[in-house]
């Protein structure tokens, strides 16, 4: 069989035109059935030794296709595609080939599947979003499905991501995905790495690069250092880093390319935070998202326990939740009360300047020691660690050595005045897109808190935002950091700190133990705040260094 015939073209499915999709589906069906037939006929004839290998290869190829079909049957926003792909899978199964089934429960390990919007039951606005996303990427990823709790933000997020990855920009497409891989690998985020490895190969990237950074061009290797510093200790970025990248003879970056790369790096660092923070499950068609094993009892247990999604486990959590219902109810009440107090007596007791300054320092220092007591070592996911070197370099590392984080004053260099102008100058339109995204994330509110309605949450949001910036040493002159201590309790701080600084260490327990009475959508909202604040913090440091280089 010629390779060309076997090529399955998925892109027709992204069309909004149902007839185009239909023909594409028909083609896929033909190809897959042909392959299946072929495999079956080979299987039936006695094996020749030389065939063994090629058979395995073609079975592998078929399995990949089937996994993709499975993903489509679950996650395509178009109903016709979902139905048809399911039908194809069934017919393949009838031919005696084992078909995959999805593992785990839904897009997130932390959030029960029933809480998350099912594909197919979305309203018109979300459907448009899904269709847009699907048309752009050829898939509807789990991140999108979790973010759709906040469609307003999702729209901006997808627009930005689409622009960064697919629209006009100084970097070639495969570079962009490779930078995404580099950034995600810094946090050992196998989910994002897998996703972008596929995309990278799809846009014609050289598979050799995937064997490790040392196989990539020197130019990208040079970026490794910036990636490392940016991910873990952005305050250490100096104009020398920038100069090193811009003046490397034939491997130099141009300023525009560098800004593009920096935006991509920060985007993927924070997206890795989101992935871990919300416990995003592997995509159905990627490794670990599906299995070909039949759902036997023993298998079920093994794979699902490792996913942290065991039904019994969930029961326990629920019962635990029930026990502490009254507890957590008070938690919300107490928080509301504190906010009210702060609102009222803000003007009365005026802390001295020294007091304010020391509050910031205390918060900054304390934030270094806020860490979950259960020091679980998460083993780096398979294949991920090769994309970066120097695994030991991390935020935590630093805090143990008690290094001093210099204070970055937002009044001297802020996103709105400085960062925006620089980004927009060097990478037109992106400044605008990111600016919108920051605004939406910062100002997003439904005026609800757990079971309460009509609450002004701006104070709480500001506390979260400033707490994250505080961890990165960014100080707002006009903020009283005492508020943070009042509003954010320890378990919440642990969660924030872990998600932002060492996302790979986030556990289900952490996710469950903060804000127990709050809805999942609110926890996702918190995550959005976290990732945007983190992205802005990293961007501020990187852009300040670029500005310093330029002047």
């Amino acid at each position, binding site marked *: 069989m010629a390779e060309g015939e076997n090529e399955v073209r998925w892109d027709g499915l992204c069309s909004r035109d149902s007839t185009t999709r239909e023909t594409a589906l028909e083609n896929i069906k033909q190809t897959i059935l042909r392959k299946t037939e072929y495999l079956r006929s080979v299987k039936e004839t006695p094996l020749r030794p030389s065939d063994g290998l090629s058979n395995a290869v073609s079975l592998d190829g078929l399995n990949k296709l089937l996994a993709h079909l499975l993903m489509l049957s679950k996650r395509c926003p178009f109903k016709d595609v979902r139905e048809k792909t399911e039908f194809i899978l069934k017919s393949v199964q009838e031919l005696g080939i084992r078909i995959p089934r999805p593992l785990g429960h839904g897009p997130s390990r932390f959030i029960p599947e029933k809480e998350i919007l099912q594909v197919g039951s979305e309203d*018109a606005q979300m459907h448009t979003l899904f269709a847009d996303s699907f048309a752009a990427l050829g898939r509807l990823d789990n991140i999108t499905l979790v973010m759709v709790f906040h469609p307003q933000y999702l729209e901006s997020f997808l627009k930005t991501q689409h622009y960064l990855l697919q629209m006009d920009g100084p970097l070639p497409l495969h570079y962009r995905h490779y930078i995404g891989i580099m950034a995600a690998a810094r946090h050992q985020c196998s989910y994002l790495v897998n996703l972008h490895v596929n995309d990278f190969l799809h846009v014609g990237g050289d598979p050799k690069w995937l064997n490790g950074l040392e196989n990539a061009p020197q130019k990208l290797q040079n970026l490794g250092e910036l990636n490392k510093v940016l991910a873990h200790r952005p305050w250490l970025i100096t104009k020398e880093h920038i100069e090193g990248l811009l003046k490397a003879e034939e491997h130099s970056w141009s300023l525009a390319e560098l800004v593009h790369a920096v935006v991509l790096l920060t985007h993927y660092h924070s997206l890795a935070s989101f992935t871990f923070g919300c416990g995003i499950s592997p995509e159905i068609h990627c490794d670990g998202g599906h299995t070909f094993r039949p759902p036997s009892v023993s298998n079920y247990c093994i794979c699902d326990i490792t996913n942290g999604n065991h039904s019994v486990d969930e029961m326990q959590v629920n019962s635990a939740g029930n026990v502490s219902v009254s507890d957590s109810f008070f938690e919300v009440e107490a928080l509301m009360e504190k906010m009210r107090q702060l609102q009222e007596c803000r003007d009365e007791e005026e802390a001295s300047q*020294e007091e304010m300054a020391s509050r910031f320092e205390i918060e900054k220092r304390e934030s270094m020691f806020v860490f979950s007591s259960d020091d679980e070592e998460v083993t780096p996911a398979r294949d991920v660690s090769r994309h970066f070197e120097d695994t030991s370099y991390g935020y935590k590392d630093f805090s143990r050595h008690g290094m001093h984080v210099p204070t970055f004053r937002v009044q001297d260099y802020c996103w709105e*005045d*400085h960062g925006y*102008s620089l980004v927009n*100058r060097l990478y037109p339109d992106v400044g605008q897109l990111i600016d919108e995204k920051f605004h939406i994330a910062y100002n997003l509110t439904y005026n609800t808190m757990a079971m309460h309605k009509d609450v002004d949450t701006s104070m709480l949001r500001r506390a979260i935002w400033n707490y994250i910036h505080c961890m990165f040493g960014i100080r707002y002159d006009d903020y009283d950091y005492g508020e943070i201590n009042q509003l954010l309790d320890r378990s919440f701080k642990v969660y924030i700190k872990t998600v932002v600084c060492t996302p790979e260490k986030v556990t289900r327990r952490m996710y469950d133990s903060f804000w127990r009475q709050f809805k999942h959508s609110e926890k996702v909202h918190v995550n959005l705040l976290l990732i945007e604040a983190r992205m802005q913090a990293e961007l501020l440091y990187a852009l300040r260094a670029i500005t310093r280089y*330029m*002047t």
Partner: protein
Amino acid sequence: MEKMSRVTTALGGSALTGRTMHCHLDAPANAISVCRDAAQVVVAGRSIFKIYAIEDEQFVEKLNLRVGRKPSLNLSCADVVWHQMDENLLATAATNGVVVTWNLGRPSRNKQDQLFTEHKRTVNKVCFHPTEAHVLLSGSQDGFMKCFDLRRKDSVSTFSGQSESVRDVQFSIRDYFTFASTFENGNVQLWDIRRPDRCERMFTAHNGPVFCCDWHPEDRGWLATGGRDKMVKVWDMTTHRAKEVHCVQTIASVARVKWRPECRHHLATCSMMVDHNIYVWDVRRPFVPAAMFEEHRDVTTGIAWRHPHDPSFLLSGSKDSTLCQHLFRDASQPVERANPEGLCYGLFGDLAFAAKESLVSTESGRKPYAGDRRHPIFFKRKLDPAEPFVGLASSALSVFEMEPGSGSMSWFVDTAERYALAGRPLAELCDHNAKVARELGRNQVAQTWTMLRVIYSSPGLASAASLNHSVGKGSSCGLPLMNSFNLKDMAPGLGSETRLDRSKGDTRSDTVLLDSSTTLITNEDNEETEGSDVPADYLLGDVEGEEDELYLLDPEHAHPEEPEYVLPQEAFPLRHEIVDTPPGPEHLQDKADSPHVSGSEADAASLAPVDSSFSLISVSHALYDTRLPPDFFSALVCDMLRFYAEQGDVQMAVSVLIVLGERVRKDIDEQTQEHWYTSYIDLLQRFCLWNVSNQVVKLSTSRAISCLNQASTTLHVNCSHCKRPMSSRGWVCDRCHRCASMCAVCHHVVKGLFVWCQGCSHGGHLQHIMKWLEGSSHCPAGCGHLCEYS
């Protein structure tokens, strides 16, 4: 005169003196403000708050207001302002949201007077009332503006900007009660100080934050605003709606804007990022700054004119920790460095060229032309005395007009439409295209096609007649592409002159002569060795090109009265000889028939210089005999394509590229191909040859090109009922669950082609409507409209 006297009275009889100078501060400055007496300036920043006296030769530090054991955040200033009525009174805005007033008259070391801690976030701006001694206004990040009476402990009134951060507040200089405020969302509001409940007026001035504003010191209604969108806009506020009267586009976000005293149209700006210079603009000339100060090494954060009635002294503070005094006479003027020359193509191919007169006059030896009598064009500009660039404004304009008819591109359109690019064997394509070219009188092109056919298809199929024909007439016309210009000089009264270098033209013709002779030699060489027809043709073409350029460049040869151009004989001996050569139709008809060939060669030999052109034919023979592989020629063909492309006939280059396909593609680098394709497609689209352009896109193999017609191929339909786009299916609206497009004839949903009447907007299936309108002229929907189907 009246103005002058006012200045002197304002300056108290003694004019300001000083020089361009700077002094080093200990820390970056955030803002500066000048005292009423123009002798002192206050500099404020995160860790600096000092008063300097401005002396003739230097700045002298007079007072450090930053006192106390531990620096408090109240001293971290975002803005500072000096009262224009009371020289002891200052106010600062702190980054932590505190507004502080300072009284220099206090006897103690600490001059701090009052502390207002009402704002919750950073205060961006403070502003004193221009005439009232005790009124202070502040604008903060928390979205509030507060008005303080310094005799009281707290604010008198609070103005809410609806939680949009306030970036600047400025009291109107003329209207006692009015102030303007600018916001981060791009809005500008006008407030009446007596009415804190709502603003008097609001409009969107910029895209993104408006960082600053400034009222015109004289003109009551003018407000200048500067924003992150890199614009400075001047608004006329006297009309009912704020009207944008001027707009200056700068190169970076505008951090500060200040009107220049005594110069009605001048304002100074500085930027917040990237650009460190201070510009003074004439708002009527928004493209080039009138003056530029380049002293600072980091962004300028504060600018102030030293005296409200003296336009020549500007003070500035910067992040590079320096305080500067700039003298206007020392400013650099970008205009001087500008290159005031312009070149522009007209709609019908006319070419206009303008340059500084000084440049023109240096050219000697040109006698001014008396202008074309048929199309007299006069250029006379009324000189505006207010014009800032008067000295530079005298320029000469020349217009080169297209000879009527010669600019016609009909050949291009015809060729594009009639060329066959695919779908037939190569030989047929070449023949067809050669025929098309010949019929349009483009014999050189026709000949090229024929040769391509000879090179790339089997020799047996060669159609001799066409080959011969094109050889015979090959040189009777040049590339039609070369436009001939009829030169005219405009407005001799203004002293304008055409600037075509005559001497250059002359040397050109020399080289042409030289070239053609070398051509001859090379051709003969070619003939003797292995020779190929293509280079001969190529070189011939080259000569043609030169000739046309010469025609263009050397107006001396052209008579203005007689636009019909006559080729100077001596420069082109070859050309005319060839025309005279009797075509040998039998020439190739029978390849074995050598006597014929030699016979005509003998004929040709009598006309000495013709040899080269005949090398074409004899080479063709050599080709057949030795059967050189077509690959052998690919380099030459590529050269030829490049030649055509360079001549401007990208049509030929692309057409050949498509027709030959794989045969030559690999020899031309991808980028060049892409470039040709895009140029050709662009041209085609300009002539509205959409079908052809799409065909070209389709036939191209370059990835970047072929994806052109795959972008934005989806056409979305809006529901006629709810006006929302119907994204899933084109005929049913998801929102209102209605079928959007019903056929008026059969009352079913139209899923395919929908045709509708633009008069009554009824329609339906194409076939149904066509059928209906055959029988009736009224609308099938019964609306009574007389629909027309065309």
